[in-house]
């Protein structure tokens, strides 16, 4: 599988080895079979967009990657570490995997700067000054260094989501997971968040992004994955995916979301 041919992305960039390997993974919520036989191999530097109708298991799948959800069958290996019940392994994986949530989930009792330095200080054991310098660097990258001393409640949705991205980046993660990062935002703010994500992608970050922003998928994705009823239905390069969808279900989905 790991021959050189597979390590060239759709955009022609060289990709590294597998960062995330998911093999025959299944998940149940009680009786309900949410994820069925998921197989996914993500190379370092690859950007993947996951789309599909709501309830198809997209979010659940990426939440399994940092063990916010537990899978019941199959293997998930992240950065060489297999996810099991071992708490040390789980924490090790979480240190290397950043996550951005639909509802930002910033810590309201801490300032923007403290939000960004909390994990570097307590998990990476960085000196405060160093953690703050790193935080300011990333806050500048998401273009809100002037808000550093404000509290999340004082910021707009778009600003909050950019802080959330900076907060994850402060841990210098190897992979970033985005769980519908623009779904809770006003149209005007969607662009400012997408701009940050595109910039991040261009710098070579490994990304898995659950989103309904098809424009984003077309511009940055190396691969688009379409999920329905807990299964990966189709997986292809964006051009092929949008212009020449293979399965009927994908065609129906695309005709519905691209119609307006």
């Amino acid at each position: 599988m790991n021959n050189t041919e597979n390590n060239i992305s759709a955009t022609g960039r060289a990709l590294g080895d597998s960062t995330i390997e998911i093999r025959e993974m299944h998940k149940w919520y009680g009786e309900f079979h949410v994820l069925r036989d998921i197989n996914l191999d993500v190379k370092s530097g690859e950007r993947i967009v996951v789309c599909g109708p709501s309830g198809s298991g997209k979010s659940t799948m990426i939440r399994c990657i940092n063990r916010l959800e537990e899978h019941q069958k199959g293997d998930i290996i992240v950065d060489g570490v297999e996810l099991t019940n071992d708490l040390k392994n789980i924490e090790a994986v979480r240190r290397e995997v950043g996550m951005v949530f639909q509802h930002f989930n910033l810590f309201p009792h801490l300032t923007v700067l403290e939000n960004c330095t909390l994990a570097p200080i307590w998990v990476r054991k960085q000196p405060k000054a160093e953690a703050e310098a790193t935080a300011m660097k990333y806050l500048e990258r998401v273009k809100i260094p002037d808000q550093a001393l404000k509290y999340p409640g004082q910021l707009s949705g778009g600003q909050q989501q950019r802080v959330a991205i900076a907060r994850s980046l402060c841990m210098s993660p190897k992979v970033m997971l985005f769980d519908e990062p623009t779904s809770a935002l006003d149209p005007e703010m969607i662009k400012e968040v997408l701009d940050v994500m595109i910039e991040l992608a261009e710098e070579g970050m490994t990304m898995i992004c659950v989103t309904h922003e098809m424009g984003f998928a077309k511009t940055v994705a190396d691969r688009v994955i379409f999920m329905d009823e807990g299964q990966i239905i189709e997986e292809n390069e964006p051009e092929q995916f949008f212009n020449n969808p293979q399965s009927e279900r994908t065609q129906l989905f695309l005709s519905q979301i691209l119609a307006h």
Partner: protein
Amino acid sequence: MSATPTANTAANTSLFAKLWYNKENRSIIVQILAALALLWFFGSMVLNAVHNLEALGKGFSFNFLEQPASYDINQHLIEYSSRSSHFTAMMVGIINTLLIAVAGIILATVLGFILGVLRLSKNWLIDKLAYCYIEFVRNVPVLLHILLIHGIVVHSLPKPKQAINFADTTFLTNRGVFMPSPEYLPLFKFVVAAFIVGVIFAWFFRKFAKGLQEKKGTQLPVFWVSLFSIIGLPAITFLALGQPVEWDIPELKGFNYKGGMVIRPEFLALWLALSFYTAAFIAEIVRAGILAVNHGQTEASMALGLPRNKTLNLVVIPQALRVIVPPLSSQYLNLTKNSSLAIAIGYMDVTATIGGISLNQTGREMECMMIVMAIYLTFSLIISASMNYYNKRIALVER
């Protein structure tokens, strides 16, 4: 249409209209009227009281406070005998009330937080046991708890002659719990000094650890080092100096134990009953506070790689406290005021002394009731002011 406003303005030029139809003026007028009505109401109440007291030939004066109280109080933390004044009796009462309130608040808070956390346990049995305790205790009036526990202490514990004996030093009887009281030898001051040194060291160590963390990122075990220096250091000094304390061990003389310290059954019953009762309410407040923190906060923290205990300490608890503190302070107020039920079992608090026996003996109900009310009001306002201060300090900043 254009004619109507002009006509209105013309009609509104009268003085009454000017005052009454202006929003600001109207609110001032209403406030003045309300203040006058209130003044009249209270004025006539006071006049009525003075009039009636005069008809009884009683006047209004606090001179009785200097007269001898001529009744005994078994639990007094300051010098008191039946020859002391009513004022001293009142002070004994105040101290007893404060003692029960402080001890009760501490125990109720500790128990309440533990029960609240147990209530959120994933262990079915623990959760249900905590649930049953809370539902039983908070749905029975606190007076019944006091009487019940008092009954248990007085009727089921043995007489002093058959006391339950712990290592010949502590004795459980229906007259109270008798314990050895320490008598400090001169060398003991070094233990005190070691304790002070320990506290100062812990304080500096904390600052040092914080500085080191900020500069180098290293994290020192601040909690354990502080614990050792504050408790361990004096303990080692104590042992090294050959335990410079002599214990006054209670001894059975006649019908009761003499010497040592005693926790009286009235105090024990009131303390436990008030604490158990209030703890049930606090448990529910704590549970609600923790549940009120969005699960997304825990997820975000864990996704950053913070372990569970740090997630709890740094993210969940600081946010839960904001929900917990306001209702918690009203539970503290309730406990303090409920302590006046002490009178039911003869614990001599402020209600039982100045508001009870002193009142009966002097017939100064007006003055005594005013004093008692003023005392509770003062306690309550102090508690509420300090809790409000704490609440403001931890409040969320928004917009």
